């Protein structure tokens, strides 16, 4: 049905062609789900774009063919390609809200997708659209037809995208990271839906993702890519039970899986010969010999009591504003040198909570006791000494570093703000910090855009540590990173905790990551803490239904597979 033969793609650059994908082969049969897995930059998206005939103008196909039902996509003109798209091949994108047109209703967009390829009347197309929405299990399809994309949640928008993709019963559906932007529980529903539709429509699905858990849940066969090469192709069961290549093995190893408690996550390394393998690095030796175990009986470093932060929103333009409690009477405490993991889905208030603790917002009520002193209602000036003590690592390593500053300027910023040391002292401190986070000394003179996501997050961590803070708030600090890079950064955070006597408030939507790093865990739902206790207790024996639901939704290797009855 879809056959990719010996495909090589290169980018045109100033210094000639730069190879992006080399000699990729794979085929997908009807009704099959093929997973294409790899890190960012491994060439998986460029491969999928080639299949759609959507390559950017600076990319050239240097060899190979893409056969869709026997015709080579690469030989077709743009008019013929257009006819093929939608009817034969459809695509589902990563960011569902951004890929829908914001100024048309969802209904109009589905109707247009149908009428582009089939000659049916408007009323008939509308009927079809409602049926489709029903099929993708959107509650109240009539309302969804009238809604604009921004009025729907991310999960619902992705269902609309799927409805549009299957509207003309395509033979091949390409799904590029379809669930990356979604919460775990929503991700599970969307994956269920894809699997179900695949059985019903009989389309072949090319599923592109960096998440092995997703692959494990839905794919029949897997192609593993690494820096433009196909490393391995196997059925899903074979790949996970018996990976042949070192890279696939390393990739599987580096996933933090629930239940598997290790001190360190294995990371992927590449030796001089280009062989890829996985190592579990030893913890770095601590300079002093003091036991690092968190002392549960010591007075807590940070204690939050009945913290409330509300927003006033207007449900309709003329209505009275109503109170929306983003953080609702939250109480937590963190012991020195321990890690509190805060888990919850998007919109549950966990980021608001972290920013209230940082005092980027003034909370409406409640106390924030830091080393016994209430900082909840301090003025900006009174807050200043505490800014030394509390540092933050943000989610987006691309947004949290000022692009106009060199790394040295970024890392020394807190020192400059507090007027600490002379230029020479600061330079030495920056060099020390860069070394601590594992960046080369040459990094100091470069700009953030010259680094990868993982390296940027290291820069952000170095900056956070500049003033020797005692509390570091990590807001989704590893969510934007690839699994293997995520493992490296998590290891680094653990090392630094010991080295710098740090206490972490670790916020994440990813339960497996939280389990890996946390001593205590708090589960947050709709602004409230629903479960709070030691990490072991919560993961071994969750008491709340919500926690259990979150845990069940995590796609994990070894669990029952969706729609396959535990194959």
């Amino acid at each position: 049905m879809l056959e990719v033969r010996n495909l090589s793609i290169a980018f045109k650059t100033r210094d000639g062609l730069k190879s992006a994908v080399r000699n990729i082969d794979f085929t997908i049969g009807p009704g099959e789900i093929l997973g294409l897995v790899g890190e960012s930059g491994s060439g998986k998206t460029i491969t999928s774009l080639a299949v759609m005939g959507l390559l950017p103008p600076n990319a050239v196909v240097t060899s190979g063919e893409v056969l869709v039902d026997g015709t080579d996509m690469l030989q077709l003109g743009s008019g013929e390609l257009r006819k093929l798209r939608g009817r034969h091949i459809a695509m589902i994108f990563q960011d569902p809200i951004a890929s829908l047109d914001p100024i048309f209703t969802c209904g109009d967009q589905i109707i247009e997708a149908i009428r582009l390829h089939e000659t049916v009347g408007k009323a008939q197309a509308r009927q079809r659209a409602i049926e489709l929405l029903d099929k993708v299990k959107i509650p109240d399809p009539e309302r969804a037809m009238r809604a604009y994309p921004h009025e729907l949640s991310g999960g619902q928008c992705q269902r609309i995208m799927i409805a549009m993709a299957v509207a003309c019963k395509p033979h091949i559906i390409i799904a590029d990271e379809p669930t990356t932007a979604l919460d775990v529980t929503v991700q599970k529903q969307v994956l269920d839906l894809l699997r179900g539709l695949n059985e019903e429509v009989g389309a072949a699905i090319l599923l592109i993702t960096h998440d092995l858990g997703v692959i494990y849940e839905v794919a029949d066969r897997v192609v593993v890519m690494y820096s433009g090469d196909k490393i391995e192709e196997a059925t899903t069961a074979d790949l996970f039970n018996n990976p042949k290549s070192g890279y696939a093995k390393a990739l599987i190893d580096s996933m933090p899986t629930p239940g598997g408690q290790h001190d360190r996550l294995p990371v992927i390394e590449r030796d001089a010969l280009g062989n890829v393998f996985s190592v579990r690095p030893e913890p770095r030796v601590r300079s002093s010999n003091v036991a690092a175990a968190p002392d549960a009986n010591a007075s807590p470093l940070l204690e939050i009591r009945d913290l409330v932060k509300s927003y006033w929103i207007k449900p309709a333009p003329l209505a009275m504003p109503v109170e929306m409690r983003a953080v609702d009477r939250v109480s937590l405490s963190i012991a020195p040198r321990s890690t509190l993991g805060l888990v919850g889905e998007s919109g549950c208030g966990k980021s608001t909570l972290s920013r209230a603790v940082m005092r980027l917002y003034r909370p409406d009520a409640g106390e924030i006791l830091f080393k016994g002193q209430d900082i909840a209602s301090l003025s900006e000036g009174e807050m200043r000494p505490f800014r030394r003590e509390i540092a933050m690592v943000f989610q987006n390593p691309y947004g949290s570093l000022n692009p106009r500053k060199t790394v040295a300027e970024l890392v020394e910023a807190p020192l400059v703000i507090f007027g600490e040391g002379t230029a020479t002292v600061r330079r030495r401190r920056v060099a020390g910090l860069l070394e601590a986070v594992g960046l080369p000394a040459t990094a100091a003179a470069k700009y953030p855009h010259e680094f990868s996501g993982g390296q940027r997050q290291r820069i952000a961590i170095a900056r956070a540590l500049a003033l020797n803070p005692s509390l570091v708030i990590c807001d989704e600090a590893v969510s934007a990173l690839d699994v293997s890079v995520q493992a490296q950064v998590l290891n680094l955070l653990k090392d630094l905790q010991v080295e710098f006597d740090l206490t972490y408030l670790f916020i994440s939507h990813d339960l497996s990551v939280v389990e890996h790093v946390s001593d205590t865990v708090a589960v947050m739902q709709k602004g409230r803490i629903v479960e709070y206790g030691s990490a072991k207790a919560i993961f071994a024996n969750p008491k709340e239904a919500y926690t259990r639901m979150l845990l069940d939704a995590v796609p994990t290797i070894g669990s029952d597979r969706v729609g396959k009855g535990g194959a």
Partner: protein
Amino acid sequence: MTSRTLGLARSQPAFVASLAVLAIVLLMAISGGWLAPHDPFTLNPQAVNQGSSASHWLGTDEFGRDLLSRLLIGIRPTLIVALGATVISAVFGSLLGIAGAYGRPWLSFLIMRAVDIMLSFPPILLALLAVGFWESGVLSLTVVIGVLYIPHFARVAHSATLQVTRQEFMEAEHAMGASVRRVVFTAILPNILSPLVVQATLTVAAAILLESGLSFLGLGIVPPEPSWGQMIGTARGYLGQNPMYVIWPSLLLALTVLAINVVGDRLRDILDPRLREE
């Protein structure tokens, strides 16, 4: 060094040519009176509205004055007004715009509404008013045009700042306890520089045009002192007799404005580390 200059000339001919044009214009502004082949103020009723000749390279104007000489000394007031006005409007406009986006709500309300009110008047009308009350001359013209373009800069700086303040690194600066001054000058200003530089090049061009317009109406540079704009204005009346009279100053004006725009564009790329080439 020379090979680098050559390489630059080959890869960016427009930029190098524009730099050369600006250098020549600047040179003429500094030494204009000295370079002039004739006295720019000497009247010669025998030779009015003549075309190019050996003694008058670019011809003469309606009073028989040498055009080339008048063009050469006319650069200085034009450039002073244009650059001075741009500096005034850029400095005050940017600061007001940043304050309007980053300051307290009442302050930003005051600033941005005042800007709206100023923008709702045609600039030439305001300039006429101001120049009418004041003594006309280079200084007053510079200040008036500078103030007139403040709202444009404030608008550009305002919207760019709004974008920047929503980025995470601003939150990071606050979390580190950075002072307002630090936030404005190290976090906001470098990141809104690109649109400001573009706006500045546009303003130089627009200020020259406004100066021409005002001089054309007789409210700018006082005759017999020449300026390019004033010359274009006067020349319009003699289009039939001596078409080259209007073409020479217009050509120079267009060339200068174009060169400023090209250089400004390139400047923006050079200032952005992400666009800088290795």
